[in-house]
């Protein structure tokens, strides 16, 4: 199994595991796609909630979760067993923590092959009509899940770090995303 397959399978497993354990929800299998971005590429306008976590080590990159505001509220309500009528601090915190658990679990899976990796503290963005811009060329592995018909997108990019591989690979940049 190559690295992309390993990441995709780990994203599916860890997302299902987190939703099952923390939200008492069984997600159907996700759909995997690979998206290549070029440096400076800007996405279509987005609405909703996006959560990011940086990954660092001999390999570096970003893991992210994105969904609609309604889905974020639903995640929070299921996680905290409380009402979440609109996006507030609790909702953003719940989405950040779910992202942390999913990407943290994938990180643990990958450390077997890639060595120790570190995670940043999650960053969460909520808004309307915002765009993301790739700071470097990268291949993103997307896994799209549906929860009662509404999409939830988990994605990750990972590349050898510049410091560790600059000599051998000519300075391949780790992927990064700007909002």
């Amino acid at each position: 199994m190559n690295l992309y397959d390993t990441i995709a399978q780990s994203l599916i497993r860890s997302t299902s595991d987190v939703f099952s354990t923390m939200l008492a929800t069984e997600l159907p299998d996700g759909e995997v796609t690979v998206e290549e971005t070029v440096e400076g590429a800007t996405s279509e306008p987005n609405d909703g909630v996006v959560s990011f976590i940086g990954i660092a080590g001999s390999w570096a990159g970003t893991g992210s979760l994105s969904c609609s505001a309604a889905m974020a509220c639903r995640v929070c309500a299921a996680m905290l067993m409380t009402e979440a009528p609109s996006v507030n601090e609790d909702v953003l915190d719940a989405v950040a923590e779910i992202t942390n658990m999913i990407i943290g679990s994938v990180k643990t899976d990958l450390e077997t092959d890639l060595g120790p990796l570190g995670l940043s503290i999650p960053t969460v963005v909520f808004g309307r009509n915002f765009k993301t811009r790739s700071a470097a060329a990268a291949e993103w592995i997307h896994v799209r899940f549906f929860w009662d018909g509404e999409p939830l997108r988990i994605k990750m990019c990972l590349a050898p770090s510049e410091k560790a591989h600059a000599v051998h690979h000519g300075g391949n940049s780790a992927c990064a995303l700007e909002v």
Partner: protein
Amino acid sequence: MDSDVLVVDDSAAIRKILTRVLRQTGMAIQTIHEAGDGQEALAVVAQHRIDLVLSDINMPKMDGLQLLASLKASPQWQEIPVVMITTEGGETKVAEAVRLGAAGYVRKPFTADQIKEKLVGILEPAVAL
């Protein structure tokens, strides 16, 4: 005697979940204190008699391993059991936590049973009235 427990996590959501889970364990718990990072946790420990600390590892300002090291370096607080609750499933961080004196660790995502299992032998069961 009922115990005081300190829950340390930068996620308010996780603190709420752990507080709920702790109340459901059937253990004799009097008060559950909360802190958002290691520095806040040390301030709570200085003000209250804490019988157990449940702490995340990845936190801003002072992380869980630094908190653990600070508690174990203190003659006053070194006997307080510390259970790490973390997404860090890798051997490096876990081994470091054990080396520093953690009483155990639970990986996120966690179930209520996994939390309860870690409390057995640390906290007393509640006495039925």
